[in-house]
């Protein structure tokens, strides 16, 4: 397992969290408000990418449905606050509950399969969510989406919201790190390596996969709620396939099975999108070349490659 190198730095999450807190904590003091909003977006998508990395890096299952789970939470909280006029805090709970339920429904279909079948099932389920959001227009607003009613006063200020996002994302980064290094997390690695051996050791592998998928849906849902507060707008593009793909690519670029690599992957992709799109409309091409480069020179992702370098020197 990647997180078990001989260097103790790779074992303790606190050093990484401290570095992240320092970097992201200082950023708003140095950059413009527009750039701070990009940093804010990087944090939110890092949480989505981490939730995908739990399945991809530990259980060995590549999900293309987590964007839809993320977007479900965004839809629910915006519908609740803007169309029904409900409290945003109750909306948070409803949205996260909706994401968890959606993930549980996905899990019922996906928990028994692995490999390409897992990819296809999560892809198909995500497409269904997207289709419903697009067509059920009297609720979702169809292609026009729904405009939110703004953030609650207490987090309305962009600085405050940025630091709240930072705190929430770092807290859940820690929780996710503990989760994958727990006995349950190790059982996911076991399922990745040999499901038949796991069963003959007494593990109900289907139940483990169901729980793992549903719990990652919880993390995606939190990211979706943050995104609703951040973007104040939701449309079918929030739940579409490219959202899931982007989250997965962030996890891959950062380093599958490293958890904290998600921050690097999210930063790399969102920065490229924002910087390169200023110069050329063909920025997806540049992004494509970056992926090819990473797959050739650092197939374990940025953090994965750094980790390998560090452990090799010993």
């Amino acid at each position, binding site marked *: 397992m990647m997180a078990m190198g001989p260097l103790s730095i790779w074992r303790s999450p606190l050093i990484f969290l401290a570095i992240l807190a320092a970097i992201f904590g200082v950023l708003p003091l140095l950059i413009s408000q527009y750039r701070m909003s990009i940093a804010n977006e990087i944090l939110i998508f890092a949480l989505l990418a981490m939730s995908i990395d739990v399945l991809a890096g530990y259980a060995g299952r590549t999900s293309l449905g987590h964007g839809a789970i993320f977007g479900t939470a965004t839809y629910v909280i915006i519908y609740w606050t803007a169309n029904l006029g409900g409290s945003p805090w109750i909306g948070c709970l409803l949205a996260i509950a909706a994401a968890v339920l959606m993930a549980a429904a996905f899990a019922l279909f996906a928990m028994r399969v692995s490999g390409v079948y897992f990819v296809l099932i999560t892809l198909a389920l995500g497409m269904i969510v997207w289709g419903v959001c697009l067509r059920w227009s009297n609720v979702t607003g169809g292609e026009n989406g729904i405009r939110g009613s703004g953030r609650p006063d207490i987090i309305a200020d962009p600085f405050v919201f940025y630091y709240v996002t930072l705190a929430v994302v770092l807290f859940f980064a820690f929780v996710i790190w503990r989760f994958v290094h*727990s006995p349950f997390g190790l059982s996911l690695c076991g399922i990745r390596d040999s499901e038949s051996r796991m*069963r003959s050791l*007494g593990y109900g592998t289907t139940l483990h996969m169901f*729980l793992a998928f549903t719990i990652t849906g919880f993390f995606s849902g939190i990211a979706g709620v943050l995104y609703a507060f951040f973007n104040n707008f939701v449309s079918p593009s929030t739940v579409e396939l490219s959202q899931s793909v982007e989250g997965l690519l962030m996890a891959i670029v950062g380093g599958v099975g490293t958890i904290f690599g998600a921050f690097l992957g999210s930063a790399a992709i969102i920065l490229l999108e924002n910087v390169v799109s200023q110069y050329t409309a063909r920025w997806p091409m540049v992004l494509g070349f970056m992926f090819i480069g990473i797959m050739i020179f650092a197939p374990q992702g940025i953090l994965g490659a750094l980790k390998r370098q560090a452990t090799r020197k010993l």
Partner: protein
Amino acid sequence: MSESALNLENIVVAFGALKAVDNVSMTVKRGERRAIIGPNGAGKTTLFNAITGVTRSTSGRITFEGLDISRKPAQSRARMGISRTFQITNLFPSLTVEQNMQLALRGTGSRKFSMLGSARLVSEEREQVASALALSRLATREAVEVTELSYGEQRQLEIAMALVSRPRLLLLDEPAAGLSPAERQMVTDIVRSLPKDLTVVLIEHDMELVLKLVDYVTCLNNGQMLAEGSPEEIRANQLVQDVYLGKARANA
């Protein structure tokens, strides 16, 4: 009845028209050392799979310590105290020996559901792992990744993982397959040093090794029971000799 650990009644495992195991019945007493022998394709591993729940038996009844387990899934049977090794090495290759042992140890308990606790072993678990590794002669290899173990060591780890949860029935599927003579001797020693109250059923091709280790032998051929008896009886049995050494059959 209370003396029998494992009881098979008319077990059939069919894959379409092929009966891989055809009407096999046997009783293994508590603490017994039993060997299942037979030529390739005799149905030995399929019978193991039926006992452990990897494949469901098509018909027949399997009882373990008096309880009918015929319809239980593999993981429930493991939690009841049935443990096995695999003929084709089936470990967690990207994990270390210690992590393999952790997974093996916790499969039968409830700590496997701990989601925020540390994966590290508590001292009681550590002792259990240490004693299983010592029994399997792997004591100094805890931190090594499975892919870096020699094939022989991987076979030893197979046994250690099957032992660590303190099963009451141990099924060894060709534990010495592919090993050098020195390593075979080690496997023999390991099986010899297993606790006396542990019931052991093993599949093995090496007749010399089998006959030294067990109290009783069951010989399968073409999925059917061919002969049963003590090692001496089996060695002298004409049918067994024909199957192993070859004989012009009437329909050949």
